[in-house]
């Protein structure tokens, strides 16, 4: 007898499923990817059980496929996220996000004296991994911001 796991968030025919988002970062991911705009058909679940994360969020977006550079922007808030590319209800590709070497226009510089906090300048950071974790070095003021202090720039 065939038993099928009951999905908490309904399946999509074609599109992208972003899995393993930390439960508290769902709305950041939606914001970073600009999913709230553009009339996309989208379902999401949050505080779902996860073996890896404890609790997680998941987003399913119909008929949407992302460029690699776009989707890697969510690595800052969801470093374990997995993208499942869905064609005719089947997963045809799984992709892990990777932290990009450069991050533009996404994060605010923590230095209040940085020019980016005073003039309409698009922020730009070079990323690097240190023993203390991910560090973002501002292209302009050259100060470093640690992952725990990251402030995502709201697009709204």
């Amino acid at each position, binding site marked *: 007898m065939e038993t099928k796991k009951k999905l908490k968030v309904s399946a999509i025919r074609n599109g992208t499923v972003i899995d393993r988002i930390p439960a508290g970062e769902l709305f950041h991911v939606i914001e970073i990817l600009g999913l709230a705009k553009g009339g996309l058909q989208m379902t999401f679940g949050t505080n779902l059980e996860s073996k890896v994360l404890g609790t997680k969020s998941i987003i399913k977006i119909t008929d949407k496929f992302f460029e690699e550079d776009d989707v890697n922007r969510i690595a800052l808030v969801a470093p374990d996220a997995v993208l499942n590319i869905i064609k005719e209800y089947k997963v045809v590709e799984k992709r892990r996000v990777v932290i990009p070497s450069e991050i533009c226009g996404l994060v605010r*510089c923590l230095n209040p*004296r940085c*020019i980016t906090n005073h*003039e*309409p300048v698009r922020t730009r950071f070079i990323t690097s991994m240190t023993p203390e974790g991910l560090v973002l070095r*501002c292209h*302009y003021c*050259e100060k470093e911001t640690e992952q725990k202090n990251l402030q995502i720039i709201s697009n709204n």
Partner: protein
Amino acid sequence: MKSLISINDFNKEEMMQVLDLAQKYEADPNCPIFMDKVIACIFFEPSTRTRLSFETAASRLGARVVGFASLSATSIAKGESLKDTIKMVSNYADMIVMRHPLDGAARYASEIAGCPVINAGDGANQHPTQTLLDMYSIRKTQGTLENLSITMVGDLKYGRTVHSLLQAMSHFNPRFHFVSCPELEIPWEYKHFLDSRNIPYTQHNVLEGQIRDTDILYMTRIQQERFQDPMEFEKVRNLMSLDASMLTETRPNLRILHPLPRVNEIATDVDERPEAYYFDQARNGVYTRMGIITYLMNQ
């Protein structure tokens, strides 16, 4: 087209080319090779030494100098953005020399301007022409930049000249000794930088006893506003101050540098000592800036 915003914009070879040009200009300071050029010196905050040094350097190279030394007489006082100011100035001039109170302003300006930009200090971030003149002074007094023992004293946390010099000298196999109070210690990212390049360094809280094995003693000013308690400031200042009685059993080649202005971290009785080099260092600023202008103009 190349700008000089951060000392990291120049590799070792480029630094040496600038120092060689500076040496040439010291031997013959009047070289009007840029009589057809206009250099804009735009200073969004006050500066005496750096601005006069740049204007002298540009004048000795024959260039005409335009610009402003404070904001009050400019359109910025009317609310003009930095972007618009830089766009406008770069239409007029062949090169921009700029100082600005905000960190990163010079990098931003270099991305907007259609001409080379020289950073003459952007907030607490970088002051690369000071670093090159420090290097020129070191090479001139020691005959080399290689394998030197450099002791840095004072405000190692906020002092931008300290950070830039440390990065620049890392190309030349140095040994560093850092003397500061715990509140003004060298930041972890610079220690991490030195560790990653296997450059040895030691840290101390008192200057006394740290001078003996030093080739270059790089003194910096401790700013009172870094301390909430004025008593604490006095205590720290005494531990970081240099007077002539401390200059015994030193290396014969020891030279004392200071980016100036000095307050009282170097007693005036040091001024007459052969080790004191800080006033000559300031004079080297003109030759070094002539070298920088020439190098960037020719790119």
